[in-house]
C-alpha cells in the first residue's frame, strides 16, 4: 500500500516514455490513445484503492525513495489533502484526455508532454522534500511551455515565451528561498524544515521572512495572484483547449496548494492573514479586464485568476469554515472552469471563430453546447442550485468579520455575472452580429460536433449540479476527512437570505452588462483591452511583488 504514491508518479512517466517508444515502431495512432486512456484509468483505480485507508483510517502513506529514511532521503507523503488534490487532478486530466481524443488529430508528442505534465503535477502534490518540489515544478513548467506553444500560432508562441521567462525568474527566486532554508536549518524535508526552521529555534527573523517571501512569490507566479498573474491570460487562452482546461482547472490550484502546505508547515500565520487582502484584490481586478475582452477563451482565463482570488481570500481568513469554503470552491472551480473551457473549445471547433462579437444565435445550431455552457456560467456566477452558489456562500459567510475584503468580493461577483451574461449572448441573442462590420460569419458553416467532445461536458455538468444539491455532506466531508477539523458552523446554505443575496448579485450583474454594452461602455472596454502589460513590466512586477511581500513581513 505504501507504494501507491510512487506509482502515481511513475505510471504517467512510464506511459510518456512508452508513447515515445512505440512511435518508432510505426504503429497506428489509436494504440497511443488506448495506452493513454488505460494508464489514466489505472491511476484512478490506484487512488480508489487508497481511499479507505486515507480517509477513514486516517493513515498517511509514506514512501521513502531508495529506502533512505526522512532526514537523509526524499520521501513521498500522501495524506488527505494530497489525496484530494491528486484525485481532482486525475479526474480533470481524464476529461481532458477524452476531449482531446476527438478534437484534433494530436500527434504523439502532445500525449508525451501531456503525461509529463501529469507526472509533474502528481510529484508536486506528493513530495515531502522542498528541493524535489522545485524539480517537479520545473518538469511541470517545461511540459506546459511546450504544450502552450503546441498550436504554433504567433500569439501562442509569444505567450509561451513570456511565461517561460517570468516563470523561470520565479523559480529562481524559489530556489534562492530553498538556499536560505538549507543554510538556516540544514534540512530539506518539509517535516524537518517545519521542526527546525522557525524563529523560536534561533533562525534570524530577517532570514525567515526573506525565505518565506521568496518561496511564496516564486510559487505564486504559477498560482497567479496579484501582481504576478500577467502571463496567465495569454498562456491559458492560446493553449489547445484540453490543455487550457487542465492549466486553469488544476495546475494553478496545485501551485496554490503547495503554498498552502508550505505556509502551514512554516507556521507563518501573519502571512496567511495577508492573503485575505491579496485574494480579495485578485478577485476584483482581473474581472475589470475580463469585462472588456472579446476573445472567448481569454475572458475565461481572466476569470480563472478572479476565482483563484476567492479561494486565496478564503484561505487567508483561516477559520475552519473558510478553509472548507476555500477547498470547496477549489473543487467546484476545477469542474466548472474545465466545463466552460471545453464548451468554448467546442464552440471554436464548430465555428472556427474565437471572437464573441462575431457569433450569435448559436442556440439553434448547437443546443447541447449552449446548455452545458449555461450550466457552467450559472455555476461560476453563483446562482442556485449549482455548486458555485454553495461555495461562494460559504466564503462570504466566513468573511463576515472583514468588511472591506467581503465588499471587494461582492463587487467581483457582480462583474462575474456581467461578463458571463456577455458570454452567454453568443448563444441566445437574436440580433445579427453583422451590425459591427466584423466579417461575415454564416451560420451554415457550422461543423458537426462529435459525441466524444460532448460526453465530458455532460459528465462535468452533472457533477456541477450534484455538488450543488448536496452541499452539507460535501462540506462536512471536506472538513472532517481532509482538513481533520470539525465544522462547528450549522450549514444552511439554501436559506431565503442567501438566495436573495445571490439574486441581488444576478440583478446588479445584468444591469452592469447593460451598462457596458452601451456605446460609452464599449469605448472604455476598447481602451482597457489595449492596455496590457508588456513582458518587461511583468518581470518588473514580479520584483515589485517580492519587495511588497518582504516589507509586509517586516512590518508585522
Amino acid at each position, binding site marked *: 500500500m505504501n507504494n501507491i504514491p*510512487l506509482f502515481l508518479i*511513475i505510471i504517467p512517466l512510464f506511459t510518456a*516514455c512508452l508513447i*515515445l*517508444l512505440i512511435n*518508432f515502431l510505426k504503429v497506428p495512432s489509436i494504440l497511443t490513445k488506448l495506452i493513454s486512456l488505460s494508464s489514466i484509468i489505472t491511476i484512478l483505480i490506484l487512488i480508489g484503492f487508497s481511499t479507505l485507508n486515507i480517509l477513514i483510517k486516517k493513515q498517511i502513506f509514506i514512501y*521513502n*525513495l*531508495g*529506502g533512505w529514511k526522512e532526514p537523509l532521503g526524499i520521501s513521498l507523503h500522501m495524506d488527505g489533502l494530497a489525496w484530494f488534490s491528486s484525485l481532482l487532478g486525475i479526474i480533470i486530466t481524464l476529461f481532458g484526455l477524452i476531449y482531446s481524443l476527438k478534437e484534433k488529430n494530436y500527434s504523439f508528442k502532445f500525449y508525451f508532454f501531456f503525461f509529463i505534465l501529469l507526472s509533474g503535477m502528481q510529484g508536486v502534490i506528493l513530495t515531502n522534500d522542498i528541493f524535489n518540489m522545485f524539480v517537479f515544478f520545473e518538469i511541470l513548467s517545461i511540459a506546459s511551455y511546450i504544450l502552450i506553444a503546441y498550436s504554433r500560432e504567433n500569439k501562442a508562441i509569444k505567450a509561451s515565451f513570456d511565461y517561460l521567462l517570468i516563470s523561470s525568474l520565479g523559480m529562481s527566486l524559489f530556489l534562492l528561498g530553498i538556499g536560505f532554508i538549507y543554510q538556516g536549518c540544514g534540512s530539506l524535508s518539509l517535516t524537518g524544515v517545519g521542526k527546525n526552521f522557525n524563529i523560536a529555534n534561533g533562525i534570524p527573523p530577517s532570514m525567515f521572512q526573506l525565505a518565506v517571501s521568496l518561496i511564496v512569490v516564486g510559487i505564486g507566479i504559477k498560482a497567479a495572484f496579484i501582481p504576478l498573474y500577467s502571463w496567465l491570460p495569454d498562456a491559458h487562452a492560446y493553449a489547445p483547449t484540453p490543455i487550457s482546461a487542465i492549466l486553469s482547472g488544476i495546475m494553478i490550484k496545485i501551485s496554490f496548494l503547495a503554498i498552502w502546505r508550505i505556509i502551514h508547515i512554516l507556521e507563518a500565520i501573519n502571512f496567511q492573514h495577508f492573503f485575505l487582502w491579496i485574494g480579495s484584490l485578485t478577485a476584483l481586478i482581473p474581472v475589470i479586464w475580463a469585462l472588456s475582452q472579446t476573445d472567448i477563451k481569454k475572458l475565461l482565463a481572466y476569470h480563472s485568476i478572479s476565482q483563484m482570488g476567492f479561494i486565496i481570500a478564503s484561505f487567508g481568513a483561516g477559520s475552519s469554515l473558510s478553509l472548507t469554503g476555500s477547498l470547496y470552491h477549489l473543487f467546484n472551480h476545477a469542474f466548472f472552469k474545465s466545463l466552460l473551457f471545453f464548451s468554448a473549445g467546442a464552440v471554436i471547433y464548430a465555428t472556427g471563430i474565437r471572437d464573441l462579437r462575431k457569433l450569435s444565435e448559436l442556440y439553434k445550431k448547437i443546443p447541447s453546447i449552449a446548455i452545458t455552457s449555461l450550466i457552467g456560467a450559472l455555476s461560476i456566477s453563483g446562482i442556485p442550485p449549482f455548486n458555485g452558489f454553495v461555495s461562494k456562500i460559504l466564503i462570504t459567510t466566513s468573511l463576515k468579520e472583514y468588511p472591506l475584503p467581503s465588499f471587494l468580493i461582492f463587487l467581483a461577483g457582480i462583474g462575474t455575472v456581467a461578463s458571463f451574461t456577455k458570454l452567454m449572448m453568443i448563444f441566445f441573442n437574436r440580433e445579427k452580429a453583422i451590425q459591427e462590420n466584423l466579417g461575415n460569419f454564416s451560420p451554415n458553416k457550422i461543423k458537426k460536433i462529435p459525441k466524444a467532445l460532448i460526453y465530458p461536458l455532460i459528465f462535468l455538468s452533472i457533477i456541477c449540479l450534484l455538488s450543488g444539491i448536496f452541499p452539507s455532506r460535501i462540506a462536512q466531508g471536506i472538513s472532517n476527512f481532509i482538513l481533520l477539523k470539525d465544522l462547528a458552523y450549522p450549514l444552511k446554505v439554501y436559506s431565503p437570505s442567501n438566495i436573495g443575496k445571490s439574486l441581488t448579485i444576478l440583478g446588479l450583474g445584468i444591469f452592469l452588462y447593460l451598462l457596458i454594452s452601451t456605446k460609452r461602455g464599449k469605448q472604455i472596454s476598447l481602451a482597457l483591452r489595449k492596455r496590457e502589460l508588456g513582458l518587461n513590466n511583468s518581470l518588473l512586477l514580479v520584483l515589485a511583488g517580492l519587495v511588497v511581500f518582504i516589507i509586509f513581513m517586516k512590518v508585522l
Partner: protein
Amino acid sequence: MEKGERSEIVSIISRKLVPYILLFGLYLISYGHLSPGGGFQGGVVLGAGIILLCLSHGIFLTEKKFPLEKIAFLEAFMITIFILLGIVGLIIAKSFLGNIFPLKKIEEVPTAGFVFLLNLVIGLKVGAGIILIFYSLCERSEK
C-alpha cells in the same frame, strides 16, 4: 552552418580531437561513482563531441554517421530502460532504483552495484538528448 568557409586546420584538429573527447565522456560515465563526473556530465561531453564534429565537418556528414531517427530512438529507449531498471529494483530490492547486485570493495568499477548501470543509461540518454537538441535547432528534423 554548412555553407560557411571551413579552415583546414580546424577540420583536422577537431577530427583528431573528437575520439579523445568521446573517450573522456565514457571515462566520466564509468568512473562517476569514484571520481568527479557521472552520467549527466559524461553524457554532455559525449554530446559535445558529436556537436564539435557537426561544427567542423558540416551537419550533413555527421547526420550520415549519426542519423536523427536512431539518436531519437536511443534517447526514448534509454529513458524507458531507466524506469524499467527502477521497477526491477522495486521488485527485488524493495525500493525504487534499489540495488540488486552484491556490493564489493570500493574502487572496483564493475562492482559498484546498480550505480554504474544507471550512470551508463543516463549518460547515453543525455548524450542523445544533447545531439537531438542541436539537430532540431539546426532544423534538420522538419523535412
